């Protein structure tokens, strides 16, 4: 069931990211709803095809982003692999895993975005970018990631057991 719901839900998340969440800022950083929702989904016990959903999420973000098309797929893929890898090791404390992955995932996506913009568009100042954009974004993602995790867990538990019974 959730496999069918996944695509429209991801689309809705990308639309919300572009139209609503991007307007809510902490300093110059913003919350990455798609990434955090995917991490929250990936950390659920028994979630399947995590890396595929991350690739799809990266693809959809790439459509609306100025960062060259297809490039968000790479950091999202890396985060997806990280989720799969770390889930097997820290699965007993899912909330800690969520916080850890929110931090690492945001860093990977932001560093990759910085590098892409630096190499293809404009040379952004490193320290300012880190202090004004990356750190606030990471803080936002970690803080807002916890309620998102709880929401996704409730949603996941209400659909997936019915599916597997």
């Amino acid at each position, binding site marked *: 069931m959730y496999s069918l719901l996944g695509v429209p839900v991801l689309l809705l998340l990308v639309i919300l990211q*572009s139209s609503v969440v991007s307007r809510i800022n902490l300093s110059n950083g913003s919350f990455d709803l798609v990434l955090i929702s995917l991490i929250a989904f990936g950390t659920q016990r028994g979630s399947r095809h995590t890396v595929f959903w991350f690739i799809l999420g990266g693809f959809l*973000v790439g459509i609306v982003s*100025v960062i060259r098309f297809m490039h968000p797929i790479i950091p999202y893929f890396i985060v997806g692999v990280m989720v799969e890898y770390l889930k097997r090791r820290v699965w007993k404390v899912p909330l800690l895993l969520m916080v850890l992955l929110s931090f690492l995932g945001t860093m990977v996506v932001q560093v990759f975005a910085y590098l892409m913009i630096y190499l293809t*568009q404009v040379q952004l100042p490193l320290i300012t970018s880190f202090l004004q954009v990356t750190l606030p974004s990471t803080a936002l993602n970690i803080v807002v990631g916890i309620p998102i995790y709880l929401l996704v867990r409730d949603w996941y538990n209400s659909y997936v057991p019915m599916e597997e019974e």
Partner: protein
Amino acid sequence: MEKINSRYLKTGFVILIIAGVLLLTLSGYLAPAFNTALKPVIGAQSWISVRYLALRDFLTVPRDVVSLRQRNSELEAEISRLQTQVITYQQQLKEAQVLYALLDFARTSPENQYIASSVIGRDPSPFLHYIIIDHGSDAGIRFGMPVVTQNGLVGTVDAVTAGAARVQLINDPSSIVNILLENSGTEATIAGSVTGEIRVSLLPQGIDVKDGDIILTSGLGGKYPGNILVGQVSSVTKQVNSLFQEATMQAAVDFNNLSVVLVIANFRPLDIQPLIPNP
């Protein structure tokens, strides 16, 4: 004959008695007697009436509670509907005010053709400053068209699809605009940054730049039309050993609260790239 006389006498007697009683009643002489006679009747009637009403209330109140609850929920639903309507009207009023302001602005420059568009999104990357508007090539929007509001310059159309367009704001790190300082008539450039701050550069050392100086587009380079308000100088940095002065500026447009913008549809940016000699 005697029988007839006796009947008349009886009838007359009865009429006399009735008339007498009526007279006594009308004159008030029988009131105490009536009151005394009616007291137990009234008492009994009151007793029955009170009990009847109490019984009726007892039997009908539960039905009233149900109907009251139903009515209450209906009224609550009505209140929520009206509150939603009020919010919608407030939103529409706000939009109308913005549109009136844009219309006023458009009337001040009748030589330009404008396409009004709503801002429907922003770029997900916090490093970049782009917005997405709800009109595209189907509405006549083309790459490079300048975008303004009633307050001033917003940016330029960076990418177009059939139904939407992406606009690069002037505070984007890769945006550069040729400007003119209105007071001194000096030309310079402004560039955005990752924090959204806009810096004025290439200001010659010799000129006098003050806080609050008005900044307009110069039209140089053919990317923007001239004389569009961009903002005001907010602080100036003058270094003796530097070739140019530097300044920061306050944009006339609040980029965080953009809701409706105007695309200047009859302006075609010039591609001067072929005119720049290759080294």
